[in-house]
């Protein structure tokens, strides 16, 4: 089991954060999400590839060893589908590392930035932030 890795990026990331969240969360505002970027490692529980936003449910072990289910919000399947994302892009049981903009209040919810699979393949803005 991997532990949570929190990596807070520099001021450059703050600029990218507002650009990255807004077009994706077209259905509601991005209020509540922090502009910092953190990194999570865990196992995909479910990929809700449904409108108005997709959600990736990921089980992430915390430093005490307890598993916490994170909800990672992403774009609509329509937008993502045209960019090549499919319901099979994240399958249950898949090991994954994600970059997210977490809730400012510490809840296990975040806005999707990018993901890296165990084979090194990346999705989203993994290299941008």
């Amino acid at each position, binding site marked *: 089991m991997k532990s949570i890795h929190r990596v807070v990026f520099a001021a450059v990331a703050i600029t990218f954060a507002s650009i990255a969240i807004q077009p994706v969360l077209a259905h509601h505002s991005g*209020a509540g999400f922090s502009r910092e970027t953190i990194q999570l490692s865990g196992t995909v529980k479910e990929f809700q590839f449904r*409108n*108005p936003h997709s959600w990736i449910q990921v089980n992430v072990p915390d430093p005490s060893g307890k598993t916490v289910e994170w909800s990672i919000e992403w774009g609509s399947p*329509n937008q993502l589908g045209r960019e090549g994302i499919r319901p099979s892009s994240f399958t249950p049981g898949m090991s994954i590392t994600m970059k997210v903009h977490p*809730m400012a209040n510490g*809840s296990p919810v975040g806005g999707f930035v990018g993901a890296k699979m165990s084979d090194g393949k990346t999705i989203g803005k993994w290299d941008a932030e």
Partner: protein
Amino acid sequence: MRIKTLTMLCGLSISLMFSPLSFAQEAAVTLFAQLPDWSGLWSMMGGTIFDRSTQTGSGGAIDHGVREHPPYTPEYEKIYMKHLALRDIDRYPDVITNCGVPVGFPRILNLPDAYEFVVRPDIFYIVTENGPNTMRVYTDGRKLPAKEDTWGTYTGVSVGHWEGDTLVWETIGLKGSRDNDSILDRTGLILSDQARITTRMRKVNENTLEARMVIEDPKALTKPWNVTKQFRKSKKPGLFMYDYGCAENQRNPVDSATGKTLILGADGKPVN
């Protein structure tokens, strides 16, 4: 003799049915050929600030301190300031977040996601994936209804005509801010039910459509407000539009008591 006549009539009918084009069909094809090609999938250029030319403050419509400067009357400037103040404490929910109402016009020209602009001789459709939303502009020669024959709807009533490659249409019958459920963007811009909008839409180059709006509103505005929106054609061939069931996986309901847009966590309970 009677049987012979009937046989001849049947033969004539069948030959007409299977002729390559009837007169009406030919006329329709001719009219289609005179219309510009606006086919394909389009997306709005820029963010969802309705009038970027008057924007102050940096960021998008949800960012604190951002606003636009329409030529509002004092009454409507006051209302807008109230909306901005709520937006700045994250208590100005987007009216469409609860998935219950259309965005209406002119906001239908201020949406993310894909657009289709369907040009026919008798009608023009704006079809947006987001929402989804549809707007109709009748181009069959009819006139706008009398004011007493409109009652205020989200998209209003529109009739238009072609001036060369430019579609010109007028829109009336908008509900505006009457029920607090029709806005122009997330800063809280609104119009009144007196708005009358003239839109001129054309291709400015092969991949760009432009809609120039002149918004007149004797209740909300002190003078006409000019706003231009542009749309870029996707270069990827064969893209599909999909349905957008806003309520399908709604994890962001609005708390009606506070106006706060909630975020539902893994257990379905609000986390904010």
